[in-house]
């Protein structure tokens, strides 16, 4: 049971890592293709501020770095699963969709569909973008090497 819970947790974390880094339009595009179960907003999407804390090095004293705008939402499916969505920025729609995905991942019926229809394509898009950037950067790489060391 505990291991099962832990696996779920990891799965949700992995989904968040993908969803937080893509545009709202992309999530919406993939979610639209899915048959969504009935759901309601437990917490209406809203904007707010969070204080970002930082510390210098691993052992520095914590300090307040500054405030960041965050949107959050909570969605409940008709079957009872509740998903939470937090994202940087003021895009409330995105927070709501992230919460919906989070709720769907917890259901046995929809977890697979979300993985294949939403998360996998988005993950591939992120990876493709990253590779493209890496390739672009790699093309301008310069290798320096020493012809003669100034010893003579």
């Amino acid at each position, binding site marked *: 049971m505990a291991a099962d819970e832990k696996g779920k947790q990891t799965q949700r974390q992995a989904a968040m890592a993908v969803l937080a880094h893509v545009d709202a339009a992309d999530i919406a595009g993939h979610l639209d293709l899915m048959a969504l179960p009935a759901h*309601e*907003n*437990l917490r*209406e999407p*809203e904007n707010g501020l969070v204080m970002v804390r930082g510390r210098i090095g691993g052992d520095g004293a914590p300090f307040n770095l500054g405030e960041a705008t965050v949107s959050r939402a*909570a969605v*409940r499916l008709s079957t009872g699963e*509740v998903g939470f969505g937090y994202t940087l920025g003021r895009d409330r729609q995105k927070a709501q969709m992230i919460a919906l995905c989070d709720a769907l991942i917890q259901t046995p019926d929809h977890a697979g569909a979300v993985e294949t229809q939403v998360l996998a394509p988005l993950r591939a898009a992120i990876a493709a973008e990253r590779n493209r950037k890496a390739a672009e950067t790699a093309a301008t790489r310069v290798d320096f090497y020493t012809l003669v060391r100034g010893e003579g």
Partner: protein
Amino acid sequence: MTTFAELSSGFADKVLSAQTTFRSVMDAMARPGSVHCIAAASGMPSGMMRGTAAIALTLFDHDTPLWLDPRMAEAAEVAKWLKFHTSAPVVADPSICSFALIGNAAELPALDRFSFGTNEYPDRSTTLILQVESLREGLAFELCGPGIEGTTVLQATIEPLDLFARLAIDTALFPRGIDVVLVADDAIVAIPRTTRLVAEGD
């Protein structure tokens, strides 16, 4: 996650609902003894009336400590709902709370257990949110005070019956004192600390 499965939702339209509820409460405070209706729709935990839920969603936040009477506190859902939607801390000591939610008004604790505020900051007193049976029928209470032209009559079924007698301590305490909001389903009546009972009949 399953703990949230039964949680009721908050306001469907946060901003407008909070604004209209605030307006109703403000009007009720300005015209003590008059019945005002809470129009905003929201979910609510069991044991909490519509008006109470709307007031909670409008006025409570992390800066307003709450005290729940035993009736409210025994329903775990109430505290959880308040925490999720308002993030207001629930305290065990009624003398430091900004709002006290009273589900079983018949067993209202002695008023001096709540905060009266200070002479410098009389606004730091406790506001009682009292759930009562009816604000449309029952005994007639004749009220007077600021905000009432002459006198006004409130027809209500209120527990405890000596509520107004107890609230008479506000006279000696002024400017300190306790404000009360009576709630019956979606109807609210405010009894601020300046309102007095003229006479009681049936």
